[in-house]
């Protein structure tokens, strides 16, 4: 069963008004696969949920820092221009929502919360850190679509030294285009499209179970000296892409992909 897309939406897209149990099962399974494919492409689960994560995922403490040496009357010092991505913390799940207060703790010896007594002191939002909120949702809560958090000072570079509990993702209403300020309906649209293609592929090649029934892609069939003919145009639409999702779906999802997380982790 899909978490985002309801089976009724795909059945309607396919024109299956009275589906058999087999057709329902095929479509239901296709939705699960389509949702998984979309999540993999986005690099996160777009359904809103409370999440606990540890950052940085990658140990950046040994990465070379860009900078230059200066000196004053008594000592030399390094002026750092940049160091990996430690100026911004890029979270995996988008968008960050403010309807539940974020809890963020920094412990440079936290080791992904495996050390006893780690992450006991919470940082203060607005003082110690602040997500790059870019607007309000329909409920008047802030939303941060790029998933970046800035801090007062630099983020630590040691892996697993930041623990964050936050809410991210879109509601089902937003994923279905039922809200005016936050519209993520293209994600659901991509899932419906992918599930429809996967369902058609399965149903077009399934074993014939009804006498006289001919699947859409097969244009002719004969029992004696068995042979059949396939409509090449239909087959191309059904089986044209060997990729996980089609280019049309990738285009729909383009604005939702978390490229930053892929780069920094």
């Amino acid at each position, binding site marked *: 069963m*899909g978490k985002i897309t309801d089976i009724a939406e795909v059945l*309607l897209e396919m024109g299956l*008004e009275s589906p058999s149990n087999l057709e*329902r099962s095929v479509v239901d399974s296709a939705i699960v696969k389509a949702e998984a494919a979309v999540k993999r492409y986005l690099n996160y689960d777009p359904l809103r949920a409370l999440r606990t994560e540890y950052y940085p995922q990658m140990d950046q403490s040994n990465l070379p820092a860009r900078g230059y040496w200066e000196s004053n009357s008594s000592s030399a010092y390094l002026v750092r221009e940049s160091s990996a991505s430690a100026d911004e913390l890029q979270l995996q799940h988008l968008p960050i929502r403010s309807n539940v207060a974020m809890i963020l703790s920094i412990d440079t010896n936290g080791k992904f919360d495996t050390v006893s007594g780690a992450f006991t002191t919470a940082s203060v939002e607005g003082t110690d850190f602040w997500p790059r909120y870019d607007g309000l949702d329909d409920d008047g809560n802030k939303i941060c679509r790029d998933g970046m958090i800035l801090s007062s000072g630099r983020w630590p570079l040691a892996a697993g030294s930041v623990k964050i509990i936050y809410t991210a993702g879109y509601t089902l209403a937003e994923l*279905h285009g039922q809200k005016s300020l936050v519209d993520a309906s293209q994600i659901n649209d991509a899932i419906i499209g992918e599930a429809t293609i996967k369902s058609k592929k399965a149903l077009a090649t399934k074993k014939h179970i009804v006498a006289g029934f001919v699947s859409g892609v097969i244009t002719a069939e004969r029992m004696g000296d068995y042979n059949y003919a396939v409509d090449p145009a239909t087959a191309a639409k059904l089986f044209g892409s060997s990729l996980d999702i089609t280019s049309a779906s990738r285009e729909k999802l383009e604005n939702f992909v978390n490229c930053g997380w892929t780069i920094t982790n």
Partner: protein
Amino acid sequence: MAVKAAQRLRNFATDVNILDGDGAVLTLVADDEIRARIGRSSEILDDDTGAKFTVTSGTPTAAGSVFTKEGGTITTQHRLRIDAADLDFDAGTYTLFFDLNDSTDGDDWKTVGREIFHLEDS
């Protein structure tokens, strides 16, 4: 089975048969209960939490929606009437679930039918 198309904030009525697992029409007896729910499968899960609309036979909603159970003497079809005020949720495509609480089979609800429920803006 057909697509049920309704409009937001407009009264809606439909007659439905309750079928068993083999697709045969069930004739309900006195203590049986039937329930209709509208929502997305992921929201409804095992109970009516998250359903956009729920009505059980013998228990009308506050707005006056009713699911009238028939005993099979005149008809096996049960009438679902949804009041306009209960169709006050976002337009979209949902699943209409029909559940049966079979008095001869213990007190648990079983989903016995599903239909496409398309709610249009009025």
